[in-house]
Protein backbone atom coordinates (compact mmCIF):
# COMPACT_ATOMS: atom_id res chain seq x y z
CA UNK A 1 0.00 0.00 0.00
CA UNK A 2 2.76 2.38 1.02
CA UNK A 3 4.86 1.57 -2.03
CA UNK A 4 1.86 2.30 -4.26
CA UNK A 5 1.24 5.66 -2.64
CA UNK A 6 4.90 6.62 -3.00
CA UNK A 7 4.91 5.65 -6.67
CA UNK A 8 1.74 7.69 -7.21
CA UNK A 9 3.37 10.73 -5.64
CA UNK A 10 6.47 10.33 -7.81
CA UNK A 11 4.43 10.25 -11.00
CA UNK A 12 1.85 13.04 -10.91
CA UNK A 13 0.45 12.18 -14.37
CA UNK A 14 -1.06 8.98 -13.05
CA UNK A 15 -3.57 9.35 -10.24
CA UNK A 16 -3.64 5.84 -8.83
CA UNK A 17 -1.00 3.80 -10.60
CA UNK A 18 -2.21 0.43 -9.38
CA UNK A 19 -5.65 0.95 -10.90
CA UNK A 20 -6.27 -0.55 -14.35
CA UNK A 21 -7.73 1.75 -17.01
CA UNK A 22 -10.44 -0.80 -17.70
CA UNK A 23 -11.74 -3.25 -15.15
CA UNK A 24 -14.48 -5.77 -15.97
CA UNK A 25 -15.89 -8.35 -13.57
CA UNK A 26 -18.64 -10.71 -14.68
CA UNK A 27 -19.38 -8.34 -17.54
CA UNK A 28 -22.52 -9.51 -19.32
CA UNK A 29 -24.59 -8.28 -22.26
CA UNK A 30 -27.90 -9.93 -23.06
CA UNK A 31 -30.28 -9.08 -25.89
CA UNK A 32 -33.78 -10.45 -25.31
CA UNK A 33 -33.00 -14.18 -25.40
CA UNK A 34 -29.43 -14.10 -26.60
CA UNK A 35 -26.32 -13.66 -24.46
CA UNK A 36 -23.71 -11.78 -26.48
CA UNK A 37 -21.17 -11.42 -23.67
CA UNK A 38 -21.27 -14.02 -20.92
CA UNK A 39 -19.72 -12.93 -17.60
CA UNK A 40 -16.18 -12.08 -18.70
CA UNK A 41 -13.40 -10.72 -16.46
CA UNK A 42 -10.50 -8.64 -17.73
CA UNK A 43 -8.27 -5.70 -16.98
CA UNK A 44 -6.39 -3.33 -19.26
CA UNK A 45 -3.42 -1.41 -17.92
CA UNK A 46 -2.14 1.96 -19.09
CA UNK A 47 0.04 1.80 -22.20
CA UNK A 48 -1.02 -1.72 -23.06
CA UNK A 49 -2.26 -2.95 -26.43
CA UNK A 50 -5.07 -5.36 -25.64
CA UNK A 51 -6.89 -7.39 -28.28
CA UNK A 52 -10.17 -9.26 -28.51
CA UNK A 53 -9.88 -12.05 -31.02
CA UNK A 54 -12.80 -14.12 -32.16
CA UNK A 55 -15.04 -15.16 -35.01
CA UNK A 56 -18.03 -13.06 -36.08
CA UNK A 57 -20.71 -13.05 -33.40
CA UNK A 58 -18.29 -13.96 -30.61
CA UNK A 59 -19.26 -10.86 -28.62
CA UNK A 60 -16.26 -8.64 -29.43
CA UNK A 61 -18.22 -5.66 -30.69
CA UNK A 62 -20.75 -5.88 -27.85
CA UNK A 63 -17.86 -5.78 -25.39
CA UNK A 64 -16.34 -2.80 -27.20
CA UNK A 65 -19.64 -0.93 -27.21
CA UNK A 66 -19.97 -1.43 -23.47
CA UNK A 67 -16.42 -0.13 -22.94
CA UNK A 68 -17.29 2.78 -25.24
CA UNK A 69 -20.20 3.65 -22.91
CA UNK A 70 -22.77 3.53 -25.68
CA UNK A 71 -24.26 0.19 -24.69
CA UNK A 72 -25.55 -0.33 -21.14
CA UNK A 73 -24.21 -3.43 -19.42
CA UNK A 74 -26.76 -6.08 -18.49
CA UNK A 75 -24.89 -7.49 -15.52
CA UNK A 76 -21.55 -7.43 -13.75
CA UNK A 77 -19.17 -4.57 -13.03
CA UNK A 78 -17.40 -2.30 -15.48
CA UNK A 79 -15.08 0.55 -14.51
CA UNK A 80 -13.33 2.69 -17.09
CA UNK A 81 -10.71 5.16 -15.86
CA UNK A 82 -12.06 4.27 -12.45
CA UNK A 83 -15.53 5.54 -13.35
CA UNK A 84 -18.88 3.84 -13.74
CA UNK A 85 -20.38 4.06 -17.27
CA UNK A 86 -23.90 4.02 -15.85
CA UNK A 87 -23.49 7.30 -14.03
CA UNK A 88 -20.54 8.94 -15.77
CA UNK A 89 -20.91 7.96 -19.43
CA UNK A 90 -20.28 11.43 -20.88
CA UNK A 91 -17.23 12.02 -18.63
CA UNK A 92 -15.72 8.69 -19.68
CA UNK A 93 -16.53 9.20 -23.37
CA UNK A 94 -14.72 12.53 -23.18
CA UNK A 95 -11.51 10.57 -22.53
CA UNK A 96 -12.02 7.81 -25.12
CA UNK A 97 -11.19 7.63 -28.80
CA UNK A 98 -13.45 5.34 -30.80
CA UNK A 99 -12.85 3.76 -34.20
CA UNK A 100 -16.11 1.93 -34.91
CA UNK A 101 -16.42 -1.09 -37.16
CA UNK A 102 -18.36 0.92 -39.73
CA UNK A 103 -17.22 4.46 -40.49
CA UNK A 104 -19.49 7.19 -39.17
CA UNK A 105 -17.90 10.10 -41.02
CA UNK A 106 -20.06 12.86 -42.45
CA UNK A 107 -19.61 12.08 -46.14
CA UNK A 108 -20.83 15.49 -47.32
CA UNK A 109 -18.26 17.44 -45.32
CA UNK A 110 -14.58 17.82 -46.08
CA UNK A 111 -11.83 15.84 -44.37
CA UNK A 112 -10.85 18.91 -42.36
CA UNK A 113 -14.42 19.76 -41.36
CA UNK A 114 -15.00 16.22 -40.12
CA UNK A 115 -12.08 16.56 -37.71
CA UNK A 116 -13.07 20.05 -36.66
CA UNK A 117 -16.72 19.24 -35.95
CA UNK A 118 -15.79 16.09 -34.05
CA UNK A 119 -13.46 18.14 -31.89
CA UNK A 120 -16.30 20.54 -31.19
CA UNK A 121 -18.37 17.61 -29.88
CA UNK A 122 -15.74 17.24 -27.19
CA UNK A 123 -16.17 20.90 -26.36
CA UNK A 124 -12.68 21.77 -27.62
CA UNK A 125 -12.21 25.48 -28.34
CA UNK A 126 -12.17 26.49 -32.01
CA UNK A 127 -8.74 28.15 -31.94
CA UNK A 128 -7.01 25.17 -30.31
CA UNK A 129 -8.66 22.83 -32.78
CA UNK A 130 -7.06 24.38 -35.85
CA UNK A 131 -3.53 23.33 -34.88
CA UNK A 132 -4.77 19.96 -33.67
CA UNK A 133 -6.59 19.28 -36.95
CA UNK A 134 -3.44 20.11 -38.97
CA UNK A 135 -1.32 17.79 -36.82
CA UNK A 136 -3.82 14.95 -37.21
CA UNK A 137 -4.08 15.47 -40.98
CA UNK A 138 -0.32 15.08 -41.09
CA UNK A 139 -0.42 11.98 -38.88
CA UNK A 140 -3.08 10.38 -41.10
CA UNK A 141 -1.20 11.39 -44.28
CA UNK A 142 -4.26 13.30 -45.47
CA UNK A 143 -2.88 16.86 -45.55
CA UNK A 144 -3.21 17.18 -49.31
CA UNK A 145 -6.83 15.93 -49.14
CA UNK A 146 -7.81 18.30 -46.33
CA UNK A 147 -10.38 20.15 -48.41
CA UNK A 148 -11.77 17.14 -50.30
CA UNK A 149 -15.20 15.82 -49.56
CA UNK A 150 -15.06 12.52 -47.71
CA UNK A 151 -17.43 10.57 -49.94
CA UNK A 152 -15.10 9.87 -52.89
CA UNK A 153 -12.09 8.94 -50.71
CA UNK A 154 -10.78 5.36 -50.75
CA UNK A 155 -11.62 2.96 -47.93
CA UNK A 156 -8.07 3.25 -46.57
CA UNK A 157 -8.23 7.05 -46.48
CA UNK A 158 -11.62 7.01 -44.74
CA UNK A 159 -10.24 4.59 -42.18
CA UNK A 160 -7.19 6.80 -41.56
CA UNK A 161 -9.51 9.78 -41.19
CA UNK A 162 -11.62 7.85 -38.68
CA UNK A 163 -8.48 7.04 -36.68
CA UNK A 164 -7.33 10.66 -36.86
CA UNK A 165 -10.80 11.76 -35.72
CA UNK A 166 -10.67 9.37 -32.76
CA UNK A 167 -7.47 11.09 -31.58
CA UNK A 168 -8.90 14.62 -31.61
CA UNK A 169 -9.35 14.66 -27.82
CA UNK A 170 -5.96 13.06 -26.99
CA UNK A 171 -7.77 10.03 -25.58
CA UNK A 172 -6.53 7.94 -22.65
CA UNK A 173 -7.84 4.81 -24.36
CA UNK A 174 -8.25 4.19 -28.07
CA UNK A 175 -10.95 1.62 -28.94
CA UNK A 176 -10.58 0.07 -32.39
CA UNK A 177 -13.30 -2.29 -33.58
CA UNK A 178 -11.92 -4.25 -36.54
CA UNK A 179 -9.82 -1.31 -37.70
CA UNK A 180 -8.59 -2.85 -40.95
CA UNK A 181 -11.46 -5.08 -42.08
CA UNK A 182 -12.15 -4.58 -45.78
CA UNK A 183 -8.89 -2.81 -46.59
CA UNK A 184 -6.31 -3.87 -49.16
CA UNK A 185 -2.88 -5.05 -47.89
CA UNK A 186 -1.16 -1.71 -48.60
CA UNK A 187 -3.78 0.24 -46.66
CA UNK A 188 -3.60 -2.25 -43.79
CA UNK A 189 0.16 -1.90 -43.50
CA UNK A 190 -0.07 1.90 -43.47
CA UNK A 191 -2.68 1.68 -40.70
CA UNK A 192 -0.62 -0.76 -38.66
CA UNK A 193 2.30 1.59 -38.95
CA UNK A 194 0.16 4.47 -37.61
CA UNK A 195 -1.21 2.34 -34.78
CA UNK A 196 2.23 1.10 -33.90
CA UNK A 197 3.42 4.72 -33.61
CA UNK A 198 0.53 5.47 -31.25
CA UNK A 199 1.49 2.48 -29.17
CA UNK A 200 5.10 3.74 -29.03
CA UNK A 201 3.72 7.09 -27.84
CA UNK A 202 2.10 5.28 -24.91
CA UNK A 203 -1.53 5.35 -26.07
CA UNK A 204 -3.52 2.47 -24.61
CA UNK A 205 -5.03 0.47 -27.46
CA UNK A 206 -7.99 -1.88 -27.17
CA UNK A 207 -8.85 -3.57 -30.41
CA UNK A 208 -10.91 -6.34 -31.88
CA UNK A 209 -9.88 -8.24 -34.95
CA UNK A 210 -10.27 -11.53 -36.70
CA UNK A 211 -6.96 -11.09 -38.48
CA UNK A 212 -4.29 -13.08 -36.69
CA UNK A 213 -1.42 -11.16 -38.26
CA UNK A 214 -2.97 -7.94 -36.97
CA UNK A 215 -3.23 -9.36 -33.46
CA UNK A 216 0.37 -10.61 -33.57
CA UNK A 217 1.64 -7.26 -34.85
CA UNK A 218 -0.20 -5.00 -32.45
CA UNK A 219 -1.26 -6.76 -29.27
CA UNK A 220 0.81 -7.23 -26.14
CA UNK A 221 -1.96 -9.32 -24.67
CA UNK A 222 -5.11 -10.77 -26.09
CA UNK A 223 -8.14 -12.85 -25.31
CA UNK A 224 -9.76 -15.31 -27.68
CA UNK A 225 -13.55 -14.99 -27.51
CA UNK A 226 -16.13 -17.50 -28.61
CA UNK A 227 -19.86 -17.55 -27.87
CA UNK A 228 -19.51 -14.61 -25.51
CA UNK A 229 -16.81 -16.20 -23.34
CA UNK A 230 -13.04 -16.05 -23.17
CA UNK A 231 -11.59 -19.36 -24.26
CA UNK A 232 -7.94 -18.35 -23.82
CA UNK A 233 -5.83 -15.36 -22.92
CA UNK A 234 -2.19 -14.32 -22.89
CA UNK A 235 0.48 -12.84 -25.15
CA UNK A 236 0.48 -14.02 -28.78
CA UNK A 237 3.65 -16.00 -28.06
CA UNK A 238 2.34 -17.65 -24.90
CA UNK A 239 -0.94 -18.55 -26.58
CA UNK A 240 0.94 -20.34 -29.35
CA UNK A 241 3.13 -22.11 -26.81
CA UNK A 242 0.14 -23.14 -24.76
CA UNK A 243 -2.38 -24.13 -27.42
CA UNK A 244 -0.30 -25.25 -30.36
CA UNK A 245 2.98 -26.98 -31.15
CA UNK A 246 6.15 -25.32 -32.34
CA UNK A 247 5.73 -26.34 -35.97
CA UNK A 248 3.06 -27.47 -38.39
CA UNK A 249 3.68 -29.82 -41.30
CA UNK A 250 1.09 -29.55 -44.06
CA UNK A 251 0.80 -32.60 -46.31
CA UNK A 252 -1.39 -32.54 -49.38
CA UNK A 253 -2.72 -35.83 -50.75
CA UNK A 254 -5.00 -36.44 -53.75
CA UNK A 255 -8.68 -35.69 -53.02
CA UNK A 256 -10.35 -38.47 -51.06
CA UNK A 257 -7.10 -39.86 -49.68
CA UNK A 258 -6.49 -37.27 -46.96
CA UNK A 259 -8.61 -38.99 -44.28
CA UNK A 260 -6.87 -42.34 -44.77
CA UNK A 261 -3.45 -40.67 -44.75
CA UNK A 262 -4.33 -38.90 -41.51
CA UNK A 263 -5.03 -42.25 -39.81
CA UNK A 264 -1.62 -43.53 -40.88
CA UNK A 265 0.07 -40.28 -39.84
CA UNK A 266 -1.13 -40.71 -36.25
CA UNK A 267 1.86 -43.03 -36.00
CA UNK A 268 4.41 -40.23 -36.38
CA UNK A 269 3.29 -38.33 -33.25
CA UNK A 270 5.80 -38.42 -30.41
CA UNK A 271 3.88 -36.96 -27.45
CA UNK A 272 0.30 -36.16 -26.41
CA UNK A 273 0.63 -32.47 -27.33
CA UNK A 274 1.14 -33.37 -30.95
CA UNK A 275 -1.89 -34.07 -33.11
CA UNK A 276 -3.16 -34.73 -36.62
CA UNK A 277 -5.96 -32.82 -38.29
CA UNK A 278 -7.51 -34.05 -41.54
CA UNK A 279 -9.00 -31.38 -43.80
CA UNK A 280 -10.72 -32.16 -47.10
CA UNK A 281 -7.69 -30.97 -49.10
CA UNK A 282 -4.75 -31.67 -46.80
CA UNK A 283 -3.53 -33.11 -43.50
CA UNK A 284 -2.00 -30.93 -40.79
CA UNK A 285 0.56 -32.37 -38.40
CA UNK A 286 0.99 -30.27 -35.27
CA UNK A 287 4.42 -31.36 -34.08
CA UNK A 288 7.58 -30.14 -32.37
CA UNK A 289 9.83 -30.92 -35.34
CA UNK A 290 8.14 -30.71 -38.74
CA UNK A 291 11.01 -32.01 -40.85
CA UNK A 292 11.42 -35.06 -38.64
CA UNK A 293 7.68 -35.76 -38.86
CA UNK A 294 7.82 -35.50 -42.66
CA UNK A 295 10.73 -37.95 -42.74
CA UNK A 296 8.75 -40.42 -40.64
CA UNK A 297 5.73 -40.01 -42.90
CA UNK A 298 7.87 -41.07 -45.87
CA UNK A 299 9.19 -44.03 -43.87
CA UNK A 300 5.56 -45.07 -43.30
CA UNK A 301 5.21 -45.26 -47.07
CA UNK A 302 3.18 -42.07 -47.55
CA UNK A 303 4.00 -39.86 -50.53
CA UNK A 304 2.10 -36.57 -50.39
CA UNK A 305 1.59 -34.55 -53.60
CA UNK A 306 3.17 -31.62 -51.81
CA UNK A 307 4.29 -30.73 -48.32
CA UNK A 308 5.59 -27.82 -46.31
CA UNK A 309 6.76 -27.15 -42.79
CA UNK A 310 6.01 -23.83 -41.05
CA UNK A 311 5.99 -22.29 -37.59
CA UNK A 312 2.75 -22.40 -35.64
CA UNK A 313 0.82 -19.13 -35.81
CA UNK A 314 -1.94 -17.50 -33.85
CA UNK A 315 -4.27 -18.68 -36.59
CA UNK A 316 -3.62 -22.28 -35.59
CA UNK A 317 -4.47 -21.38 -31.99
CA UNK A 318 -7.59 -19.54 -33.12
CA UNK A 319 -8.89 -22.39 -35.26
CA UNK A 320 -8.06 -24.88 -32.54
CA UNK A 321 -10.05 -22.91 -29.98
CA UNK A 322 -12.98 -21.68 -32.03
CA UNK A 323 -13.33 -24.48 -34.55
CA UNK A 324 -13.30 -24.56 -38.31
CA UNK A 325 -17.01 -24.50 -39.06
CA UNK A 326 -18.47 -21.29 -40.46
CA UNK A 327 -20.19 -19.01 -38.01
CA UNK A 328 -22.79 -16.77 -39.64
Amino acid at each position, binding site marked *: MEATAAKGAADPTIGVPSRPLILARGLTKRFENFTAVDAVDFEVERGEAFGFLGPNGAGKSSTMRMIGC*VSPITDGTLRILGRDPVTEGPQIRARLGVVPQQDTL*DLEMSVQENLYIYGRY*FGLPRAALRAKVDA*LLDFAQLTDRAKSRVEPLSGGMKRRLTIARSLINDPDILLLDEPTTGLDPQARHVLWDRLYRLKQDGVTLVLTTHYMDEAEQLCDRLVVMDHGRFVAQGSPRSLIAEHSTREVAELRFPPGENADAARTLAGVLTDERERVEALPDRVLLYVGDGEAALGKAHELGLSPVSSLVRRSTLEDVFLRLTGRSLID
Partner: protein
Amino acid sequence: MASVAAPGRVTIWQIVEHELVDARRFWRSVVVAGLLTPLLYVVALGIGLGTVVNNHSNALGVPYVQFVAPAFLVAAALQTAAASATFPVMAGFHWIRYFHGMAATPLSPRQICDGKILWIGLRCFVSSALYLGIVACFGGLHRWQGVLGIFAATLTGLAFAAPVLALSATVSAEGQAFNILFRFVVTPMFLFSGTFYPISQLPGWGQVLAYISPLWHGTELARGAALGNISDLAVLGHTCYLLGWLLAGVALARWRFRVRLSV
Protein backbone atom coordinates in the same frame (compact mmCIF):
# COMPACT_ATOMS: atom_id res chain seq x y z
CA MET B 1 1.44 16.09 -31.80
CA ALA B 2 -0.13 19.39 -30.79
CA SER B 3 -2.00 18.96 -27.57
CA VAL B 4 -5.35 20.47 -26.97
CA ALA B 5 -6.80 22.66 -24.23
CA ALA B 6 -9.07 21.01 -21.70
CA PRO B 7 -12.47 20.17 -23.15
CA GLY B 8 -15.14 22.76 -22.55
CA ARG B 9 -18.83 22.31 -22.03
CA VAL B 10 -20.67 20.19 -24.54
CA THR B 11 -24.00 21.64 -25.59
CA ILE B 12 -26.61 21.06 -28.23
CA TRP B 13 -25.39 24.20 -30.02
CA GLN B 14 -22.47 22.13 -31.27
CA ILE B 15 -24.99 20.11 -33.27
CA VAL B 16 -26.29 23.34 -34.77
CA GLU B 17 -22.69 24.23 -35.61
CA HIS B 18 -22.33 20.90 -37.43
CA GLU B 19 -25.49 21.64 -39.42
CA LEU B 20 -24.24 25.13 -40.25
CA VAL B 21 -20.92 23.79 -41.55
CA ASP B 22 -22.95 21.32 -43.60
CA ALA B 23 -25.33 24.03 -44.77
CA ARG B 24 -22.49 26.16 -46.15
CA ARG B 25 -22.48 23.80 -49.11
CA PHE B 26 -26.13 24.09 -50.07
CA TRP B 27 -27.44 27.32 -48.55
CA ARG B 28 -27.72 28.98 -51.95
CA SER B 29 -30.12 26.36 -53.26
CA VAL B 30 -32.12 26.57 -50.02
CA VAL B 31 -32.41 30.34 -50.33
CA VAL B 32 -33.35 30.18 -54.00
CA ALA B 33 -35.98 27.52 -53.28
CA GLY B 34 -37.09 29.54 -50.27
CA LEU B 35 -37.61 32.59 -52.44
CA LEU B 36 -39.14 30.85 -55.43
CA THR B 37 -41.71 28.76 -53.56
CA PRO B 38 -43.57 31.71 -52.00
CA LEU B 39 -43.24 33.65 -55.21
CA LEU B 40 -44.89 30.87 -57.22
CA TYR B 41 -47.65 30.30 -54.66
CA VAL B 42 -48.43 33.96 -54.24
CA VAL B 43 -48.46 34.64 -57.97
CA ALA B 44 -50.36 31.49 -58.98
CA LEU B 45 -52.89 31.27 -56.18
CA GLY B 46 -52.94 34.58 -54.39
CA ILE B 47 -53.03 36.70 -57.51
CA GLY B 48 -54.22 34.25 -60.21
CA LEU B 49 -56.89 32.36 -58.30
CA GLY B 50 -57.39 35.42 -56.11
CA THR B 51 -58.59 37.48 -59.07
CA VAL B 52 -61.38 34.97 -59.68
CA VAL B 53 -62.28 34.71 -55.98
CA ASN B 54 -62.25 38.46 -55.41
CA ASN B 55 -64.37 39.12 -58.53
CA HIS B 56 -67.11 36.73 -57.44
CA SER B 57 -67.57 37.71 -53.83
CA ASN B 58 -66.05 39.49 -50.90
CA ALA B 59 -67.04 36.72 -48.49
CA LEU B 60 -63.55 36.59 -46.96
CA GLY B 61 -63.53 40.31 -46.25
CA VAL B 62 -59.95 40.74 -47.49
CA PRO B 63 -58.20 40.26 -50.83
CA TYR B 64 -57.60 36.54 -51.41
CA VAL B 65 -53.81 36.93 -51.42
CA GLN B 66 -53.92 38.29 -47.87
CA PHE B 67 -56.13 35.37 -46.86
CA VAL B 68 -53.88 32.63 -48.26
CA ALA B 69 -50.44 34.18 -47.66
CA PRO B 70 -50.27 33.46 -43.88
CA ALA B 71 -51.53 29.91 -44.51
CA PHE B 72 -48.80 29.29 -47.08
CA LEU B 73 -46.27 30.64 -44.60
CA VAL B 74 -47.24 27.99 -42.05
CA ALA B 75 -47.62 25.21 -44.62
CA ALA B 76 -44.15 25.95 -46.02
CA ALA B 77 -42.61 25.81 -42.53
CA LEU B 78 -44.34 22.50 -41.86
CA GLN B 79 -42.99 21.05 -45.09
CA THR B 80 -39.48 22.29 -44.37
CA ALA B 81 -39.72 20.75 -40.90
CA ALA B 82 -41.06 17.44 -42.21
CA ALA B 83 -38.30 17.23 -44.81
CA SER B 84 -35.58 18.00 -42.21
CA ALA B 85 -36.98 15.44 -39.77
CA THR B 86 -37.15 12.52 -42.18
CA PHE B 87 -34.44 11.68 -44.72
CA PRO B 88 -31.50 13.49 -43.04
CA VAL B 89 -32.39 11.72 -39.77
CA MET B 90 -32.62 8.35 -41.51
CA ALA B 91 -29.18 9.11 -42.96
CA GLY B 92 -27.83 9.88 -39.50
CA PHE B 93 -28.98 6.54 -38.10
CA HIS B 94 -28.88 4.24 -41.04
CA TRP B 95 -27.19 5.41 -44.24
CA ILE B 96 -24.25 7.57 -43.15
CA ARG B 97 -24.58 6.74 -39.43
CA TYR B 98 -23.11 10.00 -38.18
CA PHE B 99 -25.42 9.96 -35.14
CA HIS B 100 -23.56 6.85 -34.01
CA GLY B 101 -20.33 8.84 -34.34
CA MET B 102 -21.81 11.60 -32.18
CA ALA B 103 -22.98 9.06 -29.58
CA ALA B 104 -19.35 8.04 -29.01
CA THR B 105 -18.54 11.60 -27.85
CA PRO B 106 -19.64 13.18 -24.56
CA LEU B 107 -22.96 14.05 -26.24
CA SER B 108 -25.91 12.06 -24.92
CA PRO B 109 -28.63 10.66 -27.21
CA ARG B 110 -30.96 13.21 -25.67
CA GLN B 111 -28.65 16.08 -26.63
CA ILE B 112 -28.35 14.74 -30.16
CA CYS B 113 -32.15 14.66 -30.40
CA ASP B 114 -32.58 18.12 -28.89
CA GLY B 115 -29.87 19.57 -31.13
CA LYS B 116 -31.65 18.26 -34.20
CA ILE B 117 -34.94 19.78 -33.01
CA LEU B 118 -33.25 23.10 -32.30
CA TRP B 119 -31.77 23.10 -35.79
CA ILE B 120 -35.15 22.36 -37.38
CA GLY B 121 -36.66 25.24 -35.38
CA LEU B 122 -33.96 27.64 -36.55
CA ARG B 123 -34.42 26.54 -40.14
CA CYS B 124 -38.17 27.06 -39.95
CA PHE B 125 -37.69 30.46 -38.38
CA VAL B 126 -35.22 31.73 -40.97
CA SER B 127 -37.13 30.36 -43.96
CA SER B 128 -40.40 31.79 -42.59
CA ALA B 129 -38.84 35.23 -42.17
CA LEU B 130 -37.62 35.06 -45.75
CA TYR B 131 -41.01 33.90 -46.95
CA LEU B 132 -42.84 36.69 -45.17
CA GLY B 133 -40.47 39.25 -46.67
CA ILE B 134 -41.30 38.08 -50.20
CA VAL B 135 -45.02 37.93 -49.50
CA ALA B 136 -44.94 41.46 -48.07
CA CYS B 137 -43.34 42.69 -51.30
CA PHE B 138 -46.38 41.41 -53.20
CA GLY B 139 -48.98 43.02 -50.97
CA GLY B 140 -49.63 39.87 -48.97
CA LEU B 141 -49.17 41.56 -45.60
CA HIS B 142 -52.24 43.38 -44.36
CA ARG B 143 -50.84 44.78 -41.07
CA TRP B 144 -47.53 44.67 -39.21
CA GLN B 145 -48.73 42.14 -36.61
CA GLY B 146 -48.67 39.64 -39.45
CA VAL B 147 -44.96 39.29 -38.65
CA LEU B 148 -46.03 37.18 -35.66
CA GLY B 149 -46.92 34.55 -38.23
CA ILE B 150 -43.20 33.69 -38.31
CA PHE B 151 -43.49 32.41 -34.74
CA ALA B 152 -46.73 30.56 -35.50
CA ALA B 153 -45.04 28.91 -38.49
CA THR B 154 -41.95 27.93 -36.47
CA LEU B 155 -44.04 26.49 -33.66
CA THR B 156 -46.16 24.52 -36.14
CA GLY B 157 -43.06 23.20 -37.89
CA LEU B 158 -41.58 22.07 -34.58
CA ALA B 159 -44.85 20.57 -33.33
CA PHE B 160 -45.01 18.38 -36.41
CA ALA B 161 -41.27 17.68 -36.70
CA ALA B 162 -40.85 16.31 -33.17
CA PRO B 163 -43.10 13.24 -33.54
CA VAL B 164 -41.79 12.73 -37.09
CA LEU B 165 -38.28 12.69 -35.61
CA ALA B 166 -39.42 9.91 -33.28
CA LEU B 167 -40.69 8.00 -36.32
CA SER B 168 -37.43 8.55 -38.23
CA ALA B 169 -35.44 7.28 -35.24
CA THR B 170 -37.56 4.13 -35.19
CA VAL B 171 -37.93 2.94 -38.80
CA SER B 172 -35.08 1.08 -40.41
CA ALA B 173 -36.49 0.31 -43.87
CA GLU B 174 -35.30 2.35 -46.83
CA GLY B 175 -37.53 5.33 -46.17
CA GLN B 176 -40.78 3.61 -47.18
CA ALA B 177 -42.53 5.04 -44.12
CA PHE B 178 -41.69 8.53 -45.31
CA ASN B 179 -43.47 8.06 -48.64
CA ILE B 180 -46.56 7.09 -46.69
CA LEU B 181 -46.09 10.03 -44.34
CA PHE B 182 -45.84 12.58 -47.13
CA ARG B 183 -48.56 11.06 -49.30
CA PHE B 184 -51.16 10.33 -46.64
CA VAL B 185 -50.38 12.87 -43.91
CA VAL B 186 -48.50 15.92 -45.13
CA THR B 187 -50.30 16.45 -48.44
CA PRO B 188 -53.87 15.85 -47.13
CA MET B 189 -53.07 18.11 -44.19
CA PHE B 190 -52.18 20.86 -46.64
CA LEU B 191 -55.51 20.39 -48.43
CA PHE B 192 -57.79 20.09 -45.39
CA SER B 193 -56.40 22.60 -42.90
CA GLY B 194 -58.09 25.79 -44.04
CA THR B 195 -55.21 26.83 -46.25
CA PHE B 196 -57.27 27.75 -49.30
CA TYR B 197 -60.70 28.33 -47.71
CA PRO B 198 -62.17 28.49 -44.19
CA ILE B 199 -62.79 25.00 -42.80
CA SER B 200 -66.43 25.98 -42.25
CA GLN B 201 -66.78 25.03 -45.92
CA LEU B 202 -65.85 21.42 -45.10
CA PRO B 203 -68.35 18.70 -44.10
CA GLY B 204 -68.39 17.76 -40.40
CA TRP B 205 -65.84 14.93 -40.68
CA GLY B 206 -63.52 17.20 -42.62
CA GLN B 207 -63.68 19.78 -39.86
CA VAL B 208 -62.77 17.13 -37.31
CA LEU B 209 -59.68 16.28 -39.37
CA ALA B 210 -58.76 19.95 -39.45
CA TYR B 211 -59.12 20.27 -35.67
CA ILE B 212 -56.65 17.40 -35.21
CA SER B 213 -54.19 18.78 -37.73
CA PRO B 214 -51.47 21.00 -36.20
CA LEU B 215 -51.37 22.82 -39.52
CA TRP B 216 -54.90 24.19 -39.03
CA HIS B 217 -54.05 25.53 -35.58
CA GLY B 218 -50.89 27.16 -36.90
CA THR B 219 -52.77 28.58 -39.89
CA GLU B 220 -55.42 30.08 -37.60
CA LEU B 221 -52.70 31.74 -35.51
CA ALA B 222 -50.81 33.15 -38.48
CA ARG B 223 -53.99 34.28 -40.26
CA GLY B 224 -55.31 35.78 -37.04
CA ALA B 225 -52.09 37.73 -36.63
CA ALA B 226 -52.20 38.89 -40.25
CA LEU B 227 -55.88 39.87 -40.35
CA GLY B 228 -56.59 40.67 -36.70
CA ASN B 229 -59.80 38.64 -36.57
CA ILE B 230 -58.86 36.28 -33.72
CA SER B 231 -59.77 36.27 -30.02
CA ASP B 232 -57.20 36.03 -27.24
CA LEU B 233 -58.78 32.79 -26.08
CA ALA B 234 -58.38 31.29 -29.56
CA VAL B 235 -54.72 32.34 -29.61
CA LEU B 236 -54.21 30.62 -26.27
CA GLY B 237 -56.03 27.48 -27.35
CA HIS B 238 -54.18 27.06 -30.64
CA THR B 239 -50.82 27.78 -29.01
CA CYS B 240 -51.43 25.25 -26.25
CA TYR B 241 -52.54 22.62 -28.74
CA LEU B 242 -49.31 23.08 -30.74
CA LEU B 243 -47.18 23.12 -27.60
CA GLY B 244 -48.86 19.86 -26.57
CA TRP B 245 -47.77 18.25 -29.85
CA LEU B 246 -44.29 19.64 -29.42
CA LEU B 247 -43.82 18.43 -25.85
CA ALA B 248 -45.26 14.98 -26.54
CA GLY B 249 -43.20 14.77 -29.73
CA VAL B 250 -39.96 15.74 -28.00
CA ALA B 251 -40.56 13.15 -25.28
CA LEU B 252 -41.20 10.48 -27.92
CA ALA B 253 -38.20 11.50 -30.01
CA ARG B 254 -35.81 11.54 -27.02
CA TRP B 255 -37.00 8.06 -26.09
CA ARG B 256 -36.51 6.71 -29.62
CA PHE B 257 -33.05 8.33 -29.95
CA ARG B 258 -32.01 6.74 -26.67
CA VAL B 259 -33.28 3.31 -27.71
CA ARG B 260 -31.57 3.57 -31.10
CA LEU B 261 -28.23 4.91 -29.89
CA SER B 262 -27.68 2.88 -26.72
CA VAL B 263 -28.30 -0.80 -27.27
